[in-house]
């Protein structure tokens, strides 16, 4: 006896769609920072005007990226959601620790932080999320 009333691909397809959507917005959000900085440097116009415009665009994209991620989490089943939330917690923790360490070392004049190093924190968040995902998947395998 096999139930045929359900579409076996419904859940994976939904997950794939929302994942793609969230990943696209994350990439656009990340790209908006270097593009915005380049715009401020190279567009021969008022730095204040371009700066405010870049911040506005970055915040607007950020809001859309957050919404896409919330929709993505809502589309996951409960175990996948648990894995992703734990991975996000790891990324947040790694960010706080790294940011705190950088600030302390900068204050102690052991290192000098410029904005490119701050931007690398987003890479750290990505790496921590991937590591958290792997740990979650292995633990529930």
């Amino acid at each position, binding site marked *: *006896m*096999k*139930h045929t009333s*359900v*579409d*076996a*691909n*419904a*859940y*994976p397809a939904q*997950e794939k769609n929302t994942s793609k959507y969230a990943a696209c917005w994350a990439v656009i959000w990340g790209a908006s920072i270097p593009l915005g900085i380049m715009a401020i440097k190279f567009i021969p116009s008022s730095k204040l005007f371009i700066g405010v415009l870049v911040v506005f665009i970055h915040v607007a994209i950020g809001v859309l990226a957050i919404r896409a991620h919330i929709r993505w989490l809502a589309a996951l*089943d*409960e*175990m*996948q959601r*648990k894995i992703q939330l734990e991975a996000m917690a790891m990324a947040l923790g790694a960010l706080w620790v790294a940011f705190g360490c950088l600030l302390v070392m900068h204050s102690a004049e052991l290192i000098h932080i410029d904005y490119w190093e701050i931007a690398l924190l987003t890479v750290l968040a990505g790496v921590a999320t991937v590591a958290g995902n792997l740990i979650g*998947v292995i*633990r*529930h*395998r």
Partner: protein
Amino acid sequence: MKNRLRELRAERNWTQADLAAELEVSRQTVNAIEKGKFDPSLPLAFKVARLFGLSIEQIFQDETD
């Protein structure tokens, strides 16, 4: 928490993917529940019970019992 999910699924000749589709979860989640690596929420446990026409207690057993 122990459960009889694998046994009940095998009785019906369902694959993990079939069961996952019925429960609207991923195949990995079905696998983790069967192996006792993940305990389902109460709504999902009710869904499993309804699908097999049994009570939750007939499918899931607390290991401290």
